[in-house]
């Protein structure tokens, strides 16, 4: 039992190390800095510029969090501070369903609903023509996908605030909203940041849904209505041909390694924050 436990802990190290070793060959021809700031992507000519993919990932993740954060905060406050228990049951069921929907279904929903909506209704107000397969579509789909995670983390954090804090504030004449604003949100601020970091790292790695709605053109997007090509989509789209072009495999493994490092840092630090909060209130 001890060895299984230790081995599964070592798995984190193994994955990181394995991906790093596989991506080493590409550093012999390109500096790390050049790789992540160049936007020339011609695998046949040994030119691997990751900038378009990194930019694409950052754009859609940012949009997703901006869209999902207010909805998640408000509904988590509603669930913990305001709502009756039978309402809670309904919302939690909806959240369970939302969390259980496979990402490929989100992708299908994106192509059937969000993409046409953007290209027919929204985009004509701003740009001349857009296919709908855009940064914005990726951001919206991703935002809906991280909602259940964000809300359940927020509910967990808000519930950790002791009853007495609320009672003290309410007995001084504060309304429930004032209590939520000045006591709950302020007390749990580090926890909220940590939860957002967790949701960010979930959004970074989401593959199949964004692959289906982002358009996948390797260029740096300049507006919400441009196509983009996030890192996970790059890996998923090209793994088949990567063995035939030299250094291609190494480049894709570098993409996976970048994802791993970002997710690792975000996860480890935010988990540490959440542990500390839960211990503080115990």
């Amino acid at each position, binding site marked *: *039992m*001890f060895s*299984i*436990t*230790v081995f*599964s*802990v070592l*798995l*984190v190290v193994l994955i990181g190390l394995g*991906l790093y070793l*596989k991506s080493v060959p590409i550093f012999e021809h390109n500096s790390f800095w050049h790789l992540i700031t160049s936007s020339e992507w011609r695998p046949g000519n040994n030119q691997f510029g990751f900038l378009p993919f990194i930019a694409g990932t950052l754009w859609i993740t940012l949009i997703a969090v901006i869209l999902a954060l*207010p*909805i*998640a*905060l*408000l*509904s988590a406050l*509603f*669930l913990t501070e305001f709502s009756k228990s039978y309402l809670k049951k309904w*919302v939690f069921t909806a959240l369970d369903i*939302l*969390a*259980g*929907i*496979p*990402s*490929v*279904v989100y*992708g*299908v929903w994106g*192509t*059937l*609903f969000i993409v046409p909506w953007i290209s027919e209704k929204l985009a004509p107000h701003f740009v001349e023509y857009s296919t709908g397969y855009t940064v914005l579509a990726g951001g919206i789909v991703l935002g*809906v996908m991280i*909602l259940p995670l964000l809300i359940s983390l927020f509910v967990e954090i808000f519930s950790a605030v002791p009853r007495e804090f609320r009672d003290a504030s309410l007995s001084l004449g*504060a*309304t*429930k*909203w*004032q209590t*939520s604003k000045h006591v709950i949100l302020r007390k749990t601020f580090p926890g909220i940041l940590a939860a957002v970091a967790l949701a960010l*790292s979930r959004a*970074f*790695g989401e*593959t*199949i849904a964004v692959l*289906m709605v982002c358009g996948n053109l390797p260029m740096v997007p300049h507006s919400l209505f441009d196509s983009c090509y996030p890192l*996970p989509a790059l*890996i*998923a789209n090209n*793994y088949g041909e990567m063995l035939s072009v030299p250094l291609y495999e190494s480049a894709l*493994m570098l993409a*996976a390694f970048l994802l*791993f490092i970002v*997710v*690792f840092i*975000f*996860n*480890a630090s935010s*988990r540490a924050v959440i542990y500390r909060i839960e211990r503080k209130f115990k």
Partner: protein
Amino acid sequence: MRLKFIEEKIAKGFMIIASLAVFAFVVNIIYTIFRRGIPALNWAMISQIPAGGYYNGGGGGILNAIVGSLYIVLGSTILGLLISIPVVFYLNVYLKKDSRLAYIARLAFDVLFGIPSIVYGAFAFTIMIYLGMHTSLGGGILVITLLIIPIFIRSMDEVAQQLPKDLLDSTYALGATKLETIKVVLRQIAPGIATATLLSVGRAIGDAAGVMFTAGFTDSIPTSLNQPAATLPLSVFFQLSSPNADVQDRAYSAALILIFIVLVISILGRLITNYFSKHKI
């Protein structure tokens, strides 16, 4: 009316809108998939494997993907349970509450939980190339097992941490060894195991990025662990990338089948969880 009461009303209004938005998304997603998926749905879809020229509008169905997905989910759930139950038992019975190893292990599982499936897929793929393996059902099962072990351990551990210390003490007082205590512990964390299984089955059946690298895709039903296996999410994805409108319609039906399986599993899971909760003290 005082300003703070007006503010309260407005804030509450926004909160209700936000919660309704969550509902609206669920209803909209399910409605959209049903509306587009129902027309092309027929018995052949779920009872036949793809016939020749299926991806150009030929006959047949996606039985290969349904069976492939079920094989992978079944295999990885069993493997995952076999690995994670001993780990949870070790963390909670053998290690002390403030043990350093337990803290690091929990943190590591949290990190593993966050690692995207495409990274697992890429990692497993490099190992498979290194070992000279081809894409296969076995590879798919392995990578999905890696993916769901953190879910298993995290959600079982949550329940196991609530175990009353007195309960363990009473088993020791009756002369049980630590290993024999597992009979009592297992019964107590049974609802946790059920919930964990439910969560991980949901994640396992819906994962596309991990199996894309490792299980491959095929039109036939695999008969051994060495053969490639099709999976439902990938089947949806490949049919949707076809330029043929009929094939795209079938992708929507396949998505409908997938969502149906997921919903059935979650309802069944809820019933089973309630059943197992009866031993809990």
